[in-house]
Structures are given as C-alpha cells and as structure tokens.
C-alpha cells in the first residue's frame, strides 16, 4: 500500500519535472497566448458569438503564432477581475475583455501586469497597456433603417431596447434617421425591456409593438426572440449582432452585424511585432467592422441598389448618419445643416431624434 503511494508520488514528480522541462524548451518558439473574456455563452448568434467569430478568424490568420483561450459567461464586476487576473498570471500576453462592465477590473489588473496588453471593448478608460475598441454600430443601423423605411406599409416601426444608454440610443436614432431619410412619414415606437437577455420579455414586447401597428420590428437585446415573433406575426424584422435570417426566413430583412476578426488579428500582429500602442479604436463600415447582412430577396432591386450606394457613401465619407439638419423630438434643430456630430457627441448621446415616439427614460 505504502509502496504504491510512493510510486504514485514519484510518477507525479517525474511528470511535473517533465512538464517544466517541456515548457522551458517550448519557450523559444512560444506562441502569443491570447485570452478572451466573454459576458455570455457563445451560442449561435449575438454579441458574444460575433466576438468568438473574431477570435477564430484571428487564429486562422495568424496560425501557430497565437494560441487562444476563452472563458464565457463571466459576470461583470468582481468575478471578472478574478478571470482576467488568472489569464495574466497564466502568461497570457494579450487579453480581450469584451463587455462594458469589465472596464474597471481590466484597468485594475492591467496596473499589476504592465507587460501584458489589454484590449477592452466599448469602454472609455485607457492606460499605457490598455486600449479600447468599439464599432460604429449605428452605421449598420442607419442602412438597415433605409431598408425598413422602404418596406414598411403602416409607417410604424417597433424597437425592442434593453437599457437607455448612449450606445443603444445611437442605434435607435440612426435607425430612425435611416428610415425617415427615405420615408419621412415613419415613426418608431420604442419599448424598453430593462434586460439584455430575457427571450420571453423580448417576445412580449415585440408582440405588443406589432399589436400597436408596427409592421417592421428590430431589437437591441441579445436573443433572437424578436425576429421569431415577427416571423409568426407575418411582419418584417431587422436582426442585430448576427445574421438572424435562420430564425425568420420570411421576415428577416437584414441585420447590422459585427465583425471583430480583422481588428483582433491586427492587434495580435502588433503585439507580436512589438509595435502595439494603446489607442481608442472606433471602426465602422469602412474598416469592415460593421456589415449589413444579405438583404431579404423580397427587397426590390432598386432598394438593394440604393442601400449599396449609401453603404459606399458611408465608406468614402459622403454619407454620415448623423449629418444635419437633424431635429430632436421637440422639433428643435440639434445638428445644423451640413454639420456632423463629433465622436464625443455621439459617445454621450442622450436624446431622441424626431420621429421616435415616447419619452426617453432618464
């Protein structure tokens, strides 16, 4: 009995030594270890799914120069700090934290690991070794709005939204501006569900919007329930984050989709080359971070062509969703003709454009 224990211990010691030796020899051609912290399960569509697609693309492009690992469903706050620190202590050289609520934990851990590069999505705090990145989601929203504005018959659109923060408001406003750029009679009804993720509630809100006359619905929440509700009710839908046409083959007009892969690959390359610098990235359609999902075949060819044209316009700067004249809900002009909202003004947006119904909750 005793002998067997000694034997086991001995084997373990040998194995341990071997692994140390192995890791030392491997050190020479060590790949860059890249960690990803996700706020929700990856699933098949949605915010985290798109980030994971980005991770896979980075792997594909850099091959064995990188080695990635992700941890999903990490709650924002204290728990995330533990996960981020674990990555840093495990020798990860580059860590992506992909949710707004990871901001303070990321900054905190980054202070203790000055040699590790951190990239935080959607935040506003940077440090020497912490960069931030976010996409111009609103550009996709604007284009999707154009499609919706052309397709609506009732001239009422429904928007299921999570929380009244600038990012969501930019989306609502851009969608409304897009719709009204081709169909000034349109109004957009917004229902706040006060949750990022509750399919039942999202469904209920969509049903209510449809009952109140909306014949095109979209959402800024994480599930596909709104698209499904539209499919069942026989109205149009516009997806978000991912192409959701599978959940609404007939109803899904298009979706504003996110594509992080290009950026992730670039950051990893910069870190490997030693040229990485902290920056505040805000990429959009031009850089390919935002794309419009393939349009529903029911969208007439001339509308498709017009949308493509507008997309090109955004790429070369001729079109900007927030180019004046823009009026707010009270009919006051907030952006003068020809002027364009600055990134600073976009980042702190806290008002509805004309055409959005209901009062903004504050």
């Amino acid at each position, binding site marked *: 009995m005793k002998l067997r224990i000694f034997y086991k211990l001995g084997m373990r010691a040998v194995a341990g030594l071997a692994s140390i030796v192995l890791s030392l020899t491997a050190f020479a051609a060590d790949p860059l270890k890249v960690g990803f912290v996700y706020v929700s399960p990856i699933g098949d569509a949605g915010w985290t799914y798109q980030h994971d697609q980005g991770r896979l693309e980075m792997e594909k492009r850099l091959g064995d120069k990188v080695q990635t690992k992700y941890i999903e469903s990490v709650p924002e706050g204290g728990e995330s700090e533990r996960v981020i620190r674990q990555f840093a202590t495990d020798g990860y050289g580059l860590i992506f934290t992909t949710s707004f609520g990871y901001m303070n934990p990321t900054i905190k851990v980054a202070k203790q690991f000055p040699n590790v590069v951190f990239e935080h999505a959607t935040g506003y705090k940077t440090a020497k070794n912490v960069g931030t990145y976010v996409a111009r989601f609103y550009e996709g929203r604007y284009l999707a709005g154009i499609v919706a504005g052309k397709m609506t018959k009732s001239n009422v659109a429904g928007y299921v939204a999570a929380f009244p923060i600038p990012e969501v408001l930019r989306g609502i406003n851009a969608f409304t501006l897009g719709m009204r750029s081709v169909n000034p009679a349109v109004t957009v009804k917004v229902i706040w*569900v006060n949750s990022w993720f509750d399919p039942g509630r999202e469904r209920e809100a969509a049903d209510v919007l449809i009952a109140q006359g909306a014949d095109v619905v979209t959402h800024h929440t994480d599930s596909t*329930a709104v698209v499904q509700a539209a499919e069942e009710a026989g109205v149009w839908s516009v997806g978000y984050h991912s192409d959701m046409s599978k959940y609404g083959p007939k109803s899904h007009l298009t979706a504003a989709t996110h594509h992080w892969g290009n950026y992730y690959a670039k950051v990893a390359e910069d870190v490997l080359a030693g040229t990485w610098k902290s920056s505040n990235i805000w990429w959009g359609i031009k850089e390919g971070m935002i794309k419009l999902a393939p349009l529903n075949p029911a969208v007439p060819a001339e509308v498709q062509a017009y949308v493509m044209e507008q997309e090109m316009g955004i790429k070369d700067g001729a079109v900007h969703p927030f180019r004046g004249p823009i009026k707010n809900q009270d009919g006051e002009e907030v952006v003068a003709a020809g002027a364009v909202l600055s990134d600073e003004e976009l980042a702190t947006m806290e008002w509805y454009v004309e055409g959005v119904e*209901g009062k903004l909750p504050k």
Partner: protein
Amino acid sequence: MDTIVGILLATLGAGTPLVFAALGELVSEKSGVLNLGVEGMMIVGAVCGFAVAAESGSLWLGVITSIVAGAGTALLFGVLTLTFQANQVAAGLALTIFGVGLSAYIGLDYTSVALTGMAQIHIPLLSELPIVGPLLFSLDPLLYLSFVCFAAITYFLYRTKAGLLLRAVGESPESALSLGYSVIAIRYMAVLFGGAMAGLGGAYLALVYTPLWVEAMTAGRGWIALALVVFATWRPARVMIGAYLFGGVTIIQFHVQGFGVDIPSQLLSTLPYLATIVVLVLISRDINTIRLNAPASLGKAYHPSV
C-alpha cells in the same frame, strides 16, 4: 376592442409558464416540502423538451420529455431531502444552480435550432364568437392543459381523500404516520408532481412561447412562481390570479410604453412585481387565513424515527 383582446391573449401566454410552475410548487409545499429548485427544474424541462422536439420533430414528444425531465430533476431533490433528510433550502438552491448549469451543457448543440411553435386549436363555431372566441376557444393546447391542471389540482386538494391526506402530511406528518400512512412516499409523489409541472412550464417557454433554446431562458420565472405560491397563501385560485396579474401587468406596461406615455420605463418594469405583491397581499391579508393555509411543517425535514 382588438387591443383589449390582444392584451388579454398576451396575458394568458405570459402567465402560463408561471401557472404551471407555481401550481406544481403549491402541491409540493402543501405536502410540507419547500423546493427552491423550481427554476432549475423548469430549465432542465425546457432544454430536454426542446432537444427531443428538435431531434424527433414532434412537439408532443418534447412536452412529454419536459415533464419526465422536470420530475427526474425533482427526484434528485427528493432523494436528497426525503431519503437522506438534507436541508430543503440548501438542496433546493443547489438544484437550481445545478439545473441551470446542466441545461446549458445539454443545450450546447441546440442553440442554433429554430423550431415552429405549437399551433392553436380552433374549436369549431365557438372560436368564431366575438371576444370570447379568440380568448377562450382558439388557444394553444398547453394553455388548455393549464386550465385542466388548475381544475384538477383544486379538486384533488380539497375534494378528494388523497388530497386531504397530502395536506395532512404537510400539516402534521406525525399524525399521518400514526394513522398508518407513509409520509415519505406521499411527499415523494408531491415533489415529483411539482417537478413535472415545473418541467411543463419550461416546455411552454421553449416549445410554445419562444420556440428556441438559449441558456438561462427561464430568466427567473421559477423564482417568481415560488413567490406567487407564498403571496397567494397556498391557494390555487389565488396562484392563478397572481400569475395572470403578473403576466397582464407586464404586457400592459409594454403597451403603455409603446403608446408613449410619460412614465420612466424603469418604474414601469417594476410594476408587474409591485402590482402582484400588493394585490395578493391585500386579498390574503387576514392573518388567520395565512395560518390556516400555510402548511405547518413546511420546510422541515421529517425523521420517521423521532
């Protein structure tokens, strides 16, 4: 008029998962077992039902699986608390955590599947009546089933000997035992029934209401069901009122938002909870009725030897 019918219809849909889960928990608690694992049983029921429906293409097979899976999860709870007399509160909480995790694992391959939900049954002639037609005679089959469950449970608890026995076990297990009944066996049945009903609530969510599977899709409905049982002072009719009230106020506050009424949405979001609690507390405020209806041995482990 259409709007009102629409609101009422949506209310039925929103309330039904709660009806199933809360009625099941009520039966379990009436036998003296407090099972805080409703959320866990519900979500395991939801994922198993969805998986089987997706593989077999039969929604009904899915519903049956949900029932079995809910009861199976409850069996685990029963073994812990009834056979091994573990603490019911701790075991129930553990069951919820376990259920949410397990369901995520089982559901890994099903997050991308889109199902067509259950079609409504239109009862000939009656469904063409104005107002009551769409409201009562053209619903989905599980909604009819929830009405049947309510009637059957009420009848069982208050009009049958077996129901009396179940309540007796919840009030005073010692007396039931001294009359020669097996407290543990009766409690097992009540717990399994509670699990089956929670599973059915999960099936309603994943197969009828939002026919998709995503992690944590029950989003706390199991906890609301639990609270409903207490606030309804363990009475089936009040559980129904509470569930529909909760569903109804949820829908109405969305309508209020959609019409652009100037009330902060955060406040509106709390309304379903507030309204349900206030109404149920008001109709159940008599302290004697609470004492009369609360099972006296609720949550206490039962040691046959003592």
